[in-house]
């Protein structure tokens, strides 16, 4: 009824090629951005910022990066935690070793270092694919775990291997309050989401998708698999690296290598699969599902006033969470993002579905 594009005519190429061709979508996204950037910072509590919104945003960014690789280019990776770790520790090293190195540049350099390693560990993808590649990318994970525990220079010779970011400053402004941290993350997420959206709409994104759908056919029509796969690894690990740096600097503040262990890699892969492979929205849905839902479930019995013991609540949380994963994957194997687009499709036809 409201969500219908009747009467919205495209009269030139520019309007036909815009990111959101339907006016209602544009309004919705604009509203969402206003809520996220203005209303939320004014109203949200500290708990909401530090415990929910910041981790949600940072992990959506990481999931977005992984989605480029897994969802768009079809290269399964289990090394996401490693690229996050490389991003975080590289940013830490730039930030502490070079006096006065700006925060923004540290974070981006974290991404740049992760890119180098991403491309390096992406090389096996030229020869192997599918599950075998997933196992090969595990090497990245173990390498990172080993490097940050063993090479003491990387952690600035800290005796325990843990590092801390210190005070954050952006263009001379201190980033102290949770709201400021949230806004910093939000800015990164918005910029990278637009960037990725444009990349996947462009020539390079189409190359990735061609490789994903059938690499032999893609090669036949003139797509260079080396270039396509490695560029996907590069873009993906850059974004994941920046997300890792944000996770360390903005969310945790002080971290040890275990913060980026294999569990993190798996968690991100689940986000991408549950959220929806090959979808920008999917990264956000997946992150919300994996980050926010367990927290919600763990507090739910207390809100209802149920006198559950901590153990029972924790087990209940795991059980309901597991059931929901199975439920959503059965209802829609293509992820929550597909449900979303099915919903939109239905709305366009409503009330006369055919």
């Amino acid at each position, binding site marked *: 009824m409201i969500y219908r594009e009747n009467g919205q005519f495209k009269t030139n190429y520019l309007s036909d090629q815009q990111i959101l061709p339907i006016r209602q979508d544009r309004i919705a996204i604009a509203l969402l951005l206003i809520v996220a950037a203005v209303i939320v910072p004014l109203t949200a509590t500290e708990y909401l910022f530090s415990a929910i919104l910041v981790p949600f945003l940072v992990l959506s960014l990481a999931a977005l990066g992984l989605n480029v690789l897994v969802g768009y280019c079809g290269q399964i990776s289990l090394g996401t935690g490693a690229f996050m770790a490389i991003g975080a520790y590289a940013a830490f090293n730039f930030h502490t070793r070079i006096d006065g190195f700006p925060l923004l540049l540290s974070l981006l350099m974290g991404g740049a270092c992760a890119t180098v390693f991403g491309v390096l560990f992406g090389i096996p993808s030229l020869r192997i694919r599918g599950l075998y590649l997933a196992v090969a990318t595990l090497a990245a994970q173990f390498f990172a775990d080993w490097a940050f525990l063993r090479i003491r220079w990387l952690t600035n010779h800290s005796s325990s291997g843990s590092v801390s970011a210190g005070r954050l400053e952006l263009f001379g402004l201190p980033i102290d309050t949770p709201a400021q941290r949230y806004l910093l993350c939000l800015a990164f997420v918005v910029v990278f989401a637009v960037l990725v959206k444009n990349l996947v709409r462009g020539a390079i994104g189409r190359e990735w998708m061609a490789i994903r759908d059938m690499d032999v056919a893609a090669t036949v029509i003139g797509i260079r698999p080396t270039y396509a796969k490695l560029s996907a690894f590069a873009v993906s690990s850059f974004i994941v690296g920046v997300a890792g740096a944000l996770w360390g600097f903005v969310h945790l503040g002080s971290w040890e290598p275990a*913060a980026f262990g294999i569990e993190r890699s798996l968690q991100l892969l689940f986000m991408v699969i549950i959220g929806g492979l090959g979808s920008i929205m999917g990264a956000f849905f997946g992150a919300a599902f994996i980050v926010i839902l367990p*927290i919600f479930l763990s507090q739910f019995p207390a809100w209802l006033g149920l006198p559950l013991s901590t153990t029972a609540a924790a087990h209940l949380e795991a059980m309901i969470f597991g059931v929901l994963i199975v439920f959503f994957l059965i209802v829609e194997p293509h992820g929550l993002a597909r449900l979303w687009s099915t919903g939109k499709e239905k709305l366009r036809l409503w009330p006369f579905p055919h």
Partner: protein
Amino acid sequence: MKFRSLALSTAVLAAGLATALPAPDARAAAEQFFPALVFRTGAYAPNGAPWADGYIDYLKLVNARGGINGVKISFEECETGYATDRGVECYERLKGKNGGATVFQPLSTGITFALTEKAPVDRIPVITAGYGLSESADGGVFGWNFPITGVHWASADMQVQYIAQREGGFDRLKGKKITLLYHDSPYGKEAIPVLEARAAMHGFQFNAIPVTHPGVEQKSAWLQIRQNRPDYVLLWGWGVMNPTALKEAQATGFSREKVIGHWPSGGEPDVADLGNAAKGYSAVVLQPAAAHDSQVVEEILSKVHAKGQGTGPKEAVGQMLYMRGVVSAMIGVEGVRRAQERFGKGKVMTGEQVRWGLENLALDQPALDALGFAGVLRPIHTSCVDHMGGAWGRVQTWDGSRWVPSGTWFQADEQLLKPMIRKGADKYAENRKIERRSPQACQD
């Protein structure tokens, strides 16, 4: 149909959210709120659960005794599963509840690291009794961390002292081989600097073998031990790594009398399943050791458990990990009591006031005895600079069914640890560009 059922479930969820959100805890703010970050589930639950039970039981006991000068304690558990991000979420959830958190005690090195950054901003002390960052004993730099009763460096130091005692003097250590088998995490690595320093001092050969989390795969480590034939193996495990190590020791034919643990590898869950197979294994535990016969345990049994208020199983009361929970809670409570002496008896203390209390703890032996800790703890005196308050430990040996503490006390060598702590703290301060607290800043 598919869509309808989904829409329905979302609607139900949304309705649940809407009804659930505006439900703040409307309790009177006249209670001292102790948040409890616990891990009763997950890989490390066997170690986390007794600690949590002890922590909560002691808080219940304080309430049964009439509160802290009349101020009752309220508490709430939050399950971290030993995961740092969930721990941070719990911290954020509980820090402002019920009039504000008094202290946080995470029992996890990873969560401690994260809270070390957050606590100074929120002005809430973090007590890490027996763990955490060793250099955080320096209160001049780590203003909000309180590793009261000791840090990991102290444990490592006392292990060497115990070996020297068994060998008959430090001079006998020359030429001996000591191997550290450690959990490959910041916690496990804490042992290395002290053991390296001690090796240089006494001329023993030191060798460190890491074991990857969670520690069920140790074949190669024990192969190295078999080849290297060390005189002693120091076991720095956590959770399932400990029983695995003891089983491997048996399989390798390495005498468990020569395996020496410390408190994270000297709990009941570490050996209980092995029973007689672990008999003779000993651990140098920072105080407290297991204390089944102490007065505080009897009081918990009679005033809390007998009334059906016990948090965990009755058998666990008095075990080593349980006692660590009890002592951790006691330190927090005594911090509040000390703060009340300055800021007003019978009032609810803020985190900042409790910090003053923790920095000025003066628990001498009569005071401890009055609290029921006779034979469990030695006096604890903290100051603005010294947030540790002395590190004492005892050896306890597994007799096949329970830990038996020995009578002799070890004290961590201050001559060795103080400069190391100072150096580590200075480096931290330099990296973070923070200044040491001045003597005036210590007064308020």
